[in-house]
């Protein structure tokens, strides 16, 4: 969208200063909105999300399937160029605003300064080109080196992500790789330029746990070596517990809770977060006969439920006084320090429910 269009829509011009409350953040996202117009109506996939990530830190994003996690990350990478997509808000990367920036400029940053591991490994790899050729290409776009040097680098990366016989496999096509191997090849491609911001969308779901552990180590190494900031989107709360410094919980296109990883697991404040923790089968506990899902259906992003989007499924919706959960949308409020939650429940109610009803059952 051009600045002119933005002005017409009454949105802030993008050449404003970086948010003052995010001085030391490498990435700052402010009020990001990504809407799609479809035949059925306007899909508000992301509807006002803000967060910061510092260098060397990892932000874990968890949340309902379809809550806007992938759309958010594609938005950060400047990849919503479809005619029906409308992106607004601010994304500051190392002091540079990206939403209003020239698409060519964003493209230059992509792959070098920021890289993404896509949830869908096939979409990132072209089916007609050899896996190695694609990694070589990704490297050479940003590095003036010979094909031979780039090939050596590609083999090294394939080796680091645990592809057996990388010097042979480099000449294979994506369809000849297993699901997990494709994912690893893509990880190799994303990491080939040592990006300063790495967005990893479900990077390890197709991998067995030993390879997963290896990939998490690799990402940690990257962070240590280059001080990279990492956004890790995952359904696996075990992975979050292992690698994230901060956690952002999404529901219905919005952030419902955000905080340091320890607090999210030890003192979660939002009923949806409770639901997530409660529905997880745990290897470190006795097996239950049945899992306890959050009841009900994910919200429609076209007709988002009024008030709190979680209210149709929330067991505590009637607790706050009046009809407030159904009429007023709760905003993020500070719990303490960097811990924020968007829920009308009073602090006492939250503490009581968590300690008496939820925590004992986990």
């Amino acid at each position: 969208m051009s600045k002119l269009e933005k002005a017409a829509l009454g949105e802030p011009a993008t050449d404003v200063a970086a948010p003052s409350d995010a001085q030391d953040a490498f990435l700052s996202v402010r009020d990001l909105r990504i809407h799609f117009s479809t035949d059925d109506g306007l899909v508000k996939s992301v509807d006002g999300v803000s967060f910061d990530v510092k260098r060397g830190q990892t932000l874990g994003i968890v949340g309902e399937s379809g809550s806007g996690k992938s759309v958010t990350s594609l938005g950060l990478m400047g990849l919503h160029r479809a005619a029906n997509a409308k992106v607004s808000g601010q994304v500051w990367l190392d002091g540079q605003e990206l939403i209003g920036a020239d698409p060519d400029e964003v493209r230059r940053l992509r792959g070098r300064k920021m890289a993404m591991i896509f949830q869908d490994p096939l979409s990132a790899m072209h089916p007609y080109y050899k896996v190695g050729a694609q990694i070589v290409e990704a490297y050479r776009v940003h590095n003036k080196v010979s094909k031979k040097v780039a090939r050596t680098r590609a083999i090294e990366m394939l080796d680091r992500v645990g592809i057996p016989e990388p010097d042979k496999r480099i000449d294979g096509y994506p369809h000849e790789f297993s699901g997990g191997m494709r994912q690893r090849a893509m990880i190799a491609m994303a990491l080939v330029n040592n990006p300063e911001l790495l967005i990893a969308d479900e990077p390890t779901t197709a991998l067995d746990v030993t390879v997963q552990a290896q990939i998490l180590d690799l990402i940690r190494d990257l962070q240590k070596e280059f001080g990279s900031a990492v956004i890790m989107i995952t359904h696996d709360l075990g992975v979050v517990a292992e690698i994230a410094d901060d956690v952002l919980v999404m529901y219905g296109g919005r952030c419902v809770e955000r905080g340091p990883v320890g607090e999210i697991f030890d003192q979660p404040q939002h009923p949806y977060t409770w639901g997530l923790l409660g529905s997880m089968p745990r290897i470190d506990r006795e097996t239950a006969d049945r899992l306890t899902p959050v009841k009900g259906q994910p919200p429609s992003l076209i007709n988002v439920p009024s008030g709190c989007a979680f209210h149709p499924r929330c067991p505590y919706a009637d607790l706050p006084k009046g009809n407030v959960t159904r009429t007023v949308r709760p905003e993020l409020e500070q719990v303490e320090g960097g811990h924020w939650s968007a829920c009308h429940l009073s602090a006492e109610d939250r503490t009581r429910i968590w300690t008496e009803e939820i925590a004992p059952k986990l």
Partner: protein
Amino acid sequence: MSETNKKDTAGTAAVPHQASAPADGSAEREVLLRVKGLTKHFPIKKGLLQRQVGAVKAVDGIDFEVRKGETLGVVGESGCGKSTMGRVITRLQDPTSGSIEFEGRDITRLSTGKMRPMRRDVQMIFQDPYGSLNPRHTIGSIVSAPFRLQGVEPEGGVKKEVQRLLELVGLNPEHYNRYPHEFSGGQRQRIGIARALALKPKLVVADEPVSALDVSIQAQVVNLMDDLQQELGLTYVIIAHDLSVVRHVSDRIAVMYLGKIVELADRASLYEAPMHPYTKALMSAVPVPDPSRRGAKSERILLLGDVPSPIAPPSGCRFHTRCWKATEICRTTEPQLVELKIGQRVACHHPENFADQAPQDTVLLSAAKEASELVPDAVLEESAAVTEAATEAAEASATAEDTTPEAKTDAEPAADADAEAETAEEAPAEAAAADAEESAAESTDK
């Protein structure tokens, strides 16, 4: 996922027994699918003439059976052939050799035409929710395809039934006319599930059915699959990486490594006392959702060395290049999958939680020496304790059979074995429990 089979039976399973004892105690269950010696090799062709220069041995000789109404979980290293196995047993790909029996009927070489009626009964949920949905078709037409292909007219019409299915898997029936790209990863996965369940099949092979779902939807889908199993008597083969999910859903679990099944056991035995070193390494790497335990990772077994290639798999035991217990015999002799405990089949010369199968063999491989340095002490201590306990058991059983094995020294944990190597003597193979006798004898012969 049935209740009866899910009672944890580890306590009772720990007793060594004769090979002739009925398998798993579930022998009363009818076998729905039986797979024997199944292989699938993908030829590698080179040059203008496309000469075959080798083959990817994706599945390389596996035997197992799936019983009516049960859930068999399949886990293993990425690239070890799980999806290929799934595609071959559902006959979406032709096997290279071996046989597949469904309801007692050999379906290994059925033609496409003859397979068609069977397609109703055998369905697959694909791992890749993106690639498996045609981007040009609406969700409605994708999910109604099985009805069209099989010429089935459900009660109340196709559209109504499809909408019911969509709702069943937690999708909004209003989405009937939308296209796949408008859905998130998890939503697409559920579309695949709805399609697979449309015709109420007998066997569903689900390849990573819940990996793209957040845990709350995951719980819904797992419960849904559970309900359908109860209601319709469905049988599942579920391929998954998430060992917590696998533990929850499976009655029995097969662990694969590089085209082979290395361990096949009921759930409780596998999780409480894994016997194959690879299984043990897998279990140790599961991330636990508890940030306070981060760093306290002393129990994680690091697997060193490269993942071997399925083009030229290692000789003998395929895990020997990365196993911390590997000895000379592991390099030369392939361990057979034998039932070492009730309901627990293992392919290993030196199993965990059990008497050593090849205690006479003590020359430690370099892989093992290297690995042993990196395996945290805690693990070694534990495995030493376990091995010792197992040795005692073996000694007891061996004495009963009137042999005097030197099992004590031989069953020392492999990490110490290089030091002990000289003391090793030819220990009789009978030192191992009776039911492993056959395989051990075979090994020494080769």
